[in-house]
């Protein structure tokens, strides 16, 4: 068949179009090659090549169609339309697939894909995604806009076994459906050579209207999407890993500090900031030794760096003013892939509360043992004491009947009785200690106790020329206490203070409401004397039973004080500067509001 002038012109135009298409394909190729250097970049490049292959095929198809149409003689406008549509489609596909490749998360990819299919290729009502693998089988993992009826259809489709077919054939296909939609379109998602998922789209378009071209275009988008999905999965995995590591560091209750080879802090987690009492992470990028208090830790890390990152486990003590903090520190080195030391890492925990607790437990243990011993021993000791004392008193009476009144012996018998009484005081103290903590709790103001006992010792203080000042806050909440026990506590403290002071000394007693670090409030009582003070090495022992520095002391006063305060769920501490004075501080929880007010006497 001869070609007319018009046809030749058209052919020339078509050839021009084909060249343009070719150029577009090359551009796309470039984009795909250059655009991605993410972990799955290579996959994307392979996909890019596949994509250009496909587009080439479309162009070929267009060419051959043009040939067909030439033969039928009905080329002209129709062909040109067709081709410009092809070009548009290629453009579309190009932008679609690069959009998909750029999507970061799984849901972004899936949403994009579904929208693209719906807007550009084939309309559908609802969609379902099956995921899995050849070996494990496929399971429904997501569905979109599926009504109850659609769900039934989706289930029916699965039961019909079309899925397996798609998995084997690796290609999209359309099958008749029974529900609201006449067609179920199956779209395999492939990663490399494997089908990793299948979309099932319920479409209002008839099965026979789903063309070869539709099928190809969907497959094209889907393989792009599959790669993007894989990509997104990897990205998500990396992000998750990163998040996980960050969370690990963030949620460590131990402190974690890392310094690089120059001694600069590179990491310090929130717990670490908290433990070290730093309130902002502005230490990062600086040297630890820029905070003078942290010098010991900085030194330890520096030493570890110098020794080539040798592991060290040790306890560090920070002192600031009268506060002491004990840290348990583990140092190890930070290595890179080639096992070179790039810094050192310190993991630390605050041992201060544990140490305090240990001290308390040790103290309580000792008290419990002494208490039990005392209870049993008291009776056994007091009976023989009675016998000794009685016999000496009888002897005394006999001596007094001698002509000279037994004068030569009286001082001896008197001294025996005094010693017996001293033993008895000790036994009494031990029994006090062993009391089993049945408290008769009453709701009172602690000030009442402080005043009452001050009244008792007033005379003694005056006599010794020592001042006694009560600086009490009458707004403090009441406390639940055993009044007679608590009076004993205060009496012991007043007496100890008096014994520690010389003429012109002064005792000041404060009361007030304070809050602890976690916001709990306490009634606080401070008993501060200007006496001789307690040497540092004695400070930890004063609450121990039998510790005394006085020739006539029993060493039981403060252990009884400690027991009583503990039984009231309170706390007592001592601060002292030798030669300046001593302060005992008591914390007691305030009575709870709902506690019934008991009638008070006096």
């Amino acid at each position: 068949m001869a070609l007319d002038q018009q046809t030749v012109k058209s052919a020339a135009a078509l050839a021009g179009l084909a060249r343009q298409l070719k150029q577009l394909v090359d551009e796309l190729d470039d984009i795909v090659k250059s655009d991605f250097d993410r972990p799955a970049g290579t996959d994307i490049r392979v996909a890019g090549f596949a994509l250009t292959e496909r587009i080439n095929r479309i162009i070929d198809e267009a060419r051959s169609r043009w040939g067909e149409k030439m033969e039928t003689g009905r080329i002209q406008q129709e062909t040109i339309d067709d081709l410009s549509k092809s070009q548009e489609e290629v453009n579309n596909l190009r932008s679609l697939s690069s959009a998909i490749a750029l999507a970061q998360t799984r849901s972004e990819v899936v949403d994009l894909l579904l929208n693209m299919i719906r807007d550009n290729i084939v309309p559908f009502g609802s969609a379902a995604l099956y995921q899995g693998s050849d070996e494990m089988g496929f399971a429904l993992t997501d569905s979109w806009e599926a009504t109850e009826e659609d769900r039934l259809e989706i289930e029916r489709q699965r039961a019909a076994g079309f899925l397996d077919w798609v998995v084997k054939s690796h290609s999209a296909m359309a099958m008749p459906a029974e529900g609201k939609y006449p067609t179920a379109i199956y779209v395999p998602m492939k990663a490399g050579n494997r089908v990793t998922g299948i979309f099932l789209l319920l479409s209002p378009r008839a099965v026979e209207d789903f063309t070869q071209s539709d099928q190809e275009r969907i497959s094209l988008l889907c393989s792009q999407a599959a790669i993007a999905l894989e990509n997104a999965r990897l990205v998500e995995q990396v992000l998750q890993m990163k998040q996980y590591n960050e969370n690990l560091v963030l949620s460590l209750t131990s402190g974690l500090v890392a310094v690089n080879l120059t001694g600069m802090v590179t990491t310090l987690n929130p717990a670490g900031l908290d433990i070290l009492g730093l309130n902002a992470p502005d230490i990062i990028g600086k040297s630890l030794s820029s905070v003078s208090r942290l010098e010991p830790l900085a030194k330890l890390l520096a030493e570890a760096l110098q020794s080539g990152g040798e592991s060290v486990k040790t306890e560090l003590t920070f002192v600031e003013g009268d506060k002491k903090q004990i840290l348990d520190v583990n140092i190890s080195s930070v290595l890179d892939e080639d096992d070179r030391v790039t810094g050192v890492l310190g993991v630390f925990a605050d041992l201060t509360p544990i140490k305090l607790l240990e001290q308390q437990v040790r103290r309580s243990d000792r008290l419990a043992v002494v208490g039990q011993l005392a209870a049993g021993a008291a009776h056994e000791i007091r009976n023989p004491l009675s016998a000794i004392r009685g016999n000496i008193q009888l002897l005394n009476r006999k001596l007094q009947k001698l002509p000279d009144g037994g004068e030569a012996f009286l001082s001896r018998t008197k001294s025996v009785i005094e010693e017996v009484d001293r033993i008895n005081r000790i036994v009494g103290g031990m029994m006090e200690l062993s009391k089993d903590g049945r408290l008769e709790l009453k709701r009172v103001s602690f000030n009442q106790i402080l005043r009452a006992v001050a009244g008792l010792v007033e005379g003694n203080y005056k006599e010794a020329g020592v001042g006694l000042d009560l600086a009490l806050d009458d707004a403090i909440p009441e406390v639940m206490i055993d009044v007679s026990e608590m009076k004993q506590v205060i009496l012991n403290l007043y007496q100890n203070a008096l014994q520690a002071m010389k003429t012109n000394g002064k005792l000041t007693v404060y009361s007030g409401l304070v809050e602890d670090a976690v916001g709990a409030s306490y009634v606080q009582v401070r008993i501060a004397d200007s006496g001789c003070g307690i040497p540092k090495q004695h400070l930890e022992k004063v609450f121990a039973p039998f510790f005394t520095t006085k020739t006539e002391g029993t060493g039981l006063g403060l252990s009884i004080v400690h027991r009583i305060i503990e039984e009231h769920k309170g706390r007592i501490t001592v601060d002292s500067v030798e030669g300046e004075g001593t302060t005992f501080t008591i914390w007691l929880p305030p009575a709870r509001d709902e506690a019934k007010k008991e009638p008070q006497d006096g």
Partner: protein
Amino acid sequence: MAKKILVVEDEAKLREIYKETLTEEGYEVVLTDNGRKALTVVRGARVDLIITDIKMPEMHGVEFVTELRNAGFNTPVIMCSAYEQMKDDFDVVNAGIADFLTKPVDIDELVTKVNAILGSPAS
């Protein structure tokens, strides 16, 4: 006739001290070492005052006083204990206890308390 005091105390040495002290004051003193024997003594003879220890084998002091009261005797009693707390733990009024002594006993205090209850050694 001298007033009679019954001492209930398991420690022999203490019994002797009570006896010597109170005899010297002019009282007649009877000794036993537990509550059960003491009850027999009270049933068999007139007793003006009882001084009893609390911790004793067989029948302790509190049990003894309870039985004594149940048997209808209202003899005054001085309780004697190594535990000062006993004073608070024991219901003095209900048991009709006249007084307490804390060990180690001061014999001057003992004499004062006994005299206060009995008025004088002679009846």
